[in-house]
């Protein structure tokens, strides 16, 4: 493994702010350290600062990479800025109408969440551009002046979002407005910069969201920057790369899935170190499970939505389902046992935490001895089995089954939900799960991973080192990355050559180089990747393929692979050009062996376990007491600070030299 000079010198820290904990990972040279502090939701920066102080004291940090939930939470809780939205005359309700569909098919009541944009904050200008970029109705100086007057009267606005029809084809009018509005002294987002692609609603809502989130992000990063002694402050984006904090303040929309993206990046990095090309990352926490299929490189797609709002910027496609340790079990009016989608969350939490009264997945694990009663987080969070018994008894009585089968049933149903979710991202997309490794992390993932893998025919499960801080690790090693796009709508014909398309890419390169200059510290070893969104003329969906002279052939191959057919005579259309600029993926191979407490694995406890109607003795081990080379046969439970792994009967576990757990069927 080659070692990189830059690593041996700099102090790099990844910080992931979660709902309950803020995780920190320090990388210095070839050593790595982990730390966890309680999150401070009222001001997330507090926990970050405290964690840093506890970890490195006042040592100056070279690079701090932060996965921030600030943008996500501002959106989910609808606590963003007051935005004035400016569009073309006749289309003031663009955001309100959206795609004119409703979120819930079978509900008499529509959305209950407040809208992002107030009606009194909608403004229009009398202008129009054609789809070819021709000015049909000019934006005169008088019209701009009149708009400015109107806007000046609206003092309660924090930011402006401008999205004019067909601005993807010609940004002139938007730029005129941007220049004019600059004198108002508030941040301005314009659609031809945020997402220069066609489909007006998606572009408009991205612009609006950016304006809505950026002021919140700016306030947060300002306060963080003041209290942290780091030469560089970087923010994790939803696309799996990082950008400077200065840039993140302007383009907060790019950080919406910051946290989950860190998890996938971490899983992918571990997989890469271990030579695994095909993995399914499985991150099960307290309220939900995040899944992502990786076949080679970490994928990104541009057709995403967050909280029902389309976000058409490149993001890692993460499939989330509402199944977590806190998911509540209940009986429906037809007499069937249901698990989720409601969760007891962190508060009151599962019944065994001592505050709640609802039966959850965690309670079922505890009752069945798959969790040890000594508790979570190194015993600082004890679990009370008696508290779990009461709601289980009640539920079992309703169902007229034994408490054991009720608890087993809860887990079987949760597993079935997660198996179906893995099928959605694998078999439904044309991938065979039997070729993949399940990389399990998050607090609850490894309690379920083996049984799910068995059911789907997944041959092995990998539980990486420190699964509880994998997201922070993923952030710490993620490279700088920025994405650029431009809708061009070019019909391929004899006169459209790759050279012609290449020319159109030049404007994206120009933007990229301008950005890189602005970043201050130029990222090392930058590389560029060109790709194009292509479709058969008349189709509503595009396929993204790398751009080369043979891009049409690769488009047809991919079309055949995904959809099972191609149209031999149908013309082809290049819809959007995409350019990604990124720094080099940083390799990290920590120095081992880890500090181990023991040289031979010894269980710290054992209990009886009933599994598949047979009796076993289950042994409990501490993970930091499992030396490399250890081999164990299920049933075994491996406890560690932030996660628990259940190895059922019929499975075997191996600890590799790096301390990772590998589990497969015996």
């Amino acid at each position, binding site marked *: 493994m080659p070692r990189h000079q830059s690593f041996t010198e700099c102090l790099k820290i990844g910080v992931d702010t979660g709902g309950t904990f803020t995780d920190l990972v320090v990388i210095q040279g070839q050593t790595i350290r982990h730390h966890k502090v309680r999150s401070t939701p009222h001001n997330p920066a507090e926990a970050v600062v405290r964690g840093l102080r506890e970890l490195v004291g006042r040592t100056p940090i070279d690079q701090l990479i932060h996965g921030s939930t600030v943008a996500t939470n501002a959106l989910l809780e609808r606590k963003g800025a007051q935005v004035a939205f400016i569009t073309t005359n*006749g*289309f*003031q*309700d*663009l955001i*309100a*109408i*959206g*795609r*004119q*569909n*409703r979120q819930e*098919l*079978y*509900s*008499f*009541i*529509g*959305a*209950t969440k407040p809208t992002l944009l107030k009606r009194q904050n909608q403004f229009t200008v009398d202008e129009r551009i*054609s*789809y070819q970029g021709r000015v049909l109705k000019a934006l005169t100086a008088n019209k701009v002046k009149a708009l400015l007057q109107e806007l000046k009267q609206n003092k309660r606005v924090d930011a402006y979002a401008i999205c004019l*029809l*067909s601005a*993807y084809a010609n940004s002139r009018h938007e730029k005129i407005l941007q220049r004019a509005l600059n004198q108002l002294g508030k941040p301005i987002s314009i659609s031809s910069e945020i997402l220069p692609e*066609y*489909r*007006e609603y*998606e572009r408009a809502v991205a612009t609006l969201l950016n304006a809505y989130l950026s002021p919140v992000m700016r306030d947060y990063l300002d306060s963080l920057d003041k209290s942290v002694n780091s030469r560089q402050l970087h923010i994790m984006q939803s696309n799996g790369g990082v950008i400077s904090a200065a840039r993140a303040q302007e383009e907060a929309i790019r950080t919406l899935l910051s946290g989950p993206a860190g998890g996938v990046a971490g899983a992918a990095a571990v997989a890469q170190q271990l030579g695994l090309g095909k993995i399914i990352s499985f991150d099960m926490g307290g309220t939900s499970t995040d899944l992502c299929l990786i076949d080679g490189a970490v994928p990104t797609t541009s057709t995403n939505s967050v909280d029902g709002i389309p976000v058409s910027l490149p993001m890692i496609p993460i499939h989330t389902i509402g199944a977590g340790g806190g998911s509540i079990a209940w*009986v*429906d*009016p*037809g*007499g*069937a*046992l*249901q698990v989720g*989608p409601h969760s007891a969350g962190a508060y009151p939490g599962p019944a065994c935490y001592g505050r709640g009264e609802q039966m959850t997945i965690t309670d079922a694990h505890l009752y069945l001895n798959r969790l040890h009663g000594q508790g979570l987080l190194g015993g600082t969070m004890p679990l009370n089995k008696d508290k779990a018994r009461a709601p289980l008894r009640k539920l079992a009585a309703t*169902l007229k*089954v034994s408490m054991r089968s*009720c608890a*087993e*049933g809860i887990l*079987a*149903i949760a597993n*079935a*939900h997660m198996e*179906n979710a893995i*099928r959605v991202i694998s*078999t*439904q997309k044309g991938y065979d799960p039997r070729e993949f490794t399940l990389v399990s992390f998050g607090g609850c993932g490894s309690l379920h991973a083996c049984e799910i893998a068995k059911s789907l025919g997944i041959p092995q499960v990998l539980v990486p080192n420190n699964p509880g801080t994998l997201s922070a690790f993923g952030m710490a090693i993620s490279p700088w990355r920025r994405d650029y796009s431009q809708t061009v709508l070019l019909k391929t014909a004899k006169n459209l050559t790759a050279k012609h398309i290449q020319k159109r890419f030049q404007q994206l390169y120009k933007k990229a180089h301008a950005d890189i200059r602005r970043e201050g510290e130029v990222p090392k070893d930058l590389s560029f990747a060109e790709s194009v969104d292509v479709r058969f003329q*008349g*189709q*509503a*969906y595009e396929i993204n393929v790398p751009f080369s002279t043979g891009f049409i052939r690769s488009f047809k191959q991919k079309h055949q692979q*995904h*959809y*099972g*057919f191609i*149209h031999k005579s149908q013309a082809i259309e290049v819809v959007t050009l995409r350019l990604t600029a990124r720094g080099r993926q940083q390799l990290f191979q920590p120095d081992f062996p880890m500090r181990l407490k023991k040289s031979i694995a010894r269980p710290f406890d054992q209990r009886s376990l009933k599994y598949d109607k047979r009796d076993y003795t289950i042994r409990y081990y501490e993970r930091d007491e499992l030396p490399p080379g250890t081999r164990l046969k299920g049933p075994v439970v491996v406890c560690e600070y932030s996660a628990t792994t259940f190895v059922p009967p019929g499975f075997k576990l191996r600890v590799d030299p790096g301390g990772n757990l590998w589990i497969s069927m015996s």
Partner: protein
Amino acid sequence: MSFSPIKLEIYRGLLTALCEEMGEKLRRVSFSPNIRERQDFSCALFSDKGEMVAQAAHIPVHLGSMGLAVTEAVKGLQSSLRSGDVLITNDPFQGGTHLPDITLISPIFLPGRKRPTFYIATRAHHVDVGGDAPGSMPLSNHISSEGIYIRPTKLVTAGKINQRLITSLAKQVRLPTEFKADLNSQLAANKNGEQRLTDIIHKYGVRELCRYVNHLLDYEERLTRAVIRGIPDGSYSFADQLDDDGFSNEPVHIALQLEISGERAIFDFSASSDETQGPVNATRSIVWTCITYVMRCLMHATLESPTLSLRPISLITKKPSVVDATFPCPVAGGNVETSQRIVDVILGALAQALPKEIPAASCGSMNNIALGGRDPFRKRPFAYYETIGGGMGAAADTPGLSGVHTHMTNTLNTPIEVIEAEHPLRVTEYSLRHGSGGQGRHRGGLGICREFEFLCATEVTLLTERRRQASYGLAGGKAGKPGRNYLVRSGRRRLLPSKVNLRVKTGDRIRMETPGGGGFGKSD
């Protein structure tokens, strides 16, 4: 017979996932935007008696009627069915809806059994099935003008596809490539469902699967009975009307007498109008679909994909009538317009029993516009079809949503920038129609104003409703504002009827103002 409540939920999840996987396959393999982007299709698994066991949550207007298509299609062909067969039908009068909705049914034979044990079916709205107008929803007075009419027949015999049938059908439609691609995608989806069912049988065994399919049907019946039990006993009647049938100016009445007693419900629509000359006739299966939709809305909100049982529900219709259409009357609008009014009528009756749970009437129309002609700029023929949303009815504790599709549809709009880049059209306005929501303690949702400018001569068909009869309010709330259609020529507005076929010139505009939803409660 006893069952495990745990296994019941696991089987429900498995079979629902099977249907969802079929839907994903269908969506991915299909070509037309109608299926791929608007997702106008459904997939389901049926018992040997044609009862729906599981379904994927797709589009409301299909669900509830597919079971009838299965039983009707199988009836005549029962003795000749073999493993590997696939039936095709779009017969509106045998469990269908309208001609563009084509259903493919695969009988599933278990080893050693002579009769099918399950049926797998997909139904998809094809973008064009021939007939008098692009999109196959013309303003006509006979079903033969609405497109190809496929009575239940074998498309695949023992695994062998009848290519001659496909070729002959494709010859009669406007976009044969898309038609064939979409039929193939349905075949692929059926095959996928069959494969997953075989996997499940391998893993869990035939006997247990069959037992749990029966348990599931009973479970769905219990869920449905629980919904009906929640409605106070009584007899509730309600009537509303369609503006006209596009041929005469007479309103068309839809009337319901609803009887609730204990866990049973009787829906009696026999006082509704006779069959109409124009295409607003609804088949009986559409009425079932509307009932299923409303009952499902009343179900436990946190159940993710419950299937409804028809067992505790009886439906009475007069045959022939506007809610029980017979051959050869036209039915194109029954599915898209009359279905909305049937829902309004069911809700109107239920509002008397459940005043707090039932909302005021929504927009009540899908506001269909279909157009086409020859594009002089791109030098090719063009066709475009769109449905426009309106106002949702207000409810006891919330105002109605504005500018959305309601009840029986939920398709997406075509982005303006896509319309303009593809067709000789310009959209000059797309906004909410202020003042259109019915007043009340909670206001009804607002309709939409949409104005198209034509850049060349174009044939236009409008199929709309609630242009005269407004969407009703409830509990003292006022009705929403009815919709309006205009032709704007040389700056002058001319009011158009609710259903019309016309030829427009370069520079003309069509302006559609869609209805607002009804208000709820008296304003203070």
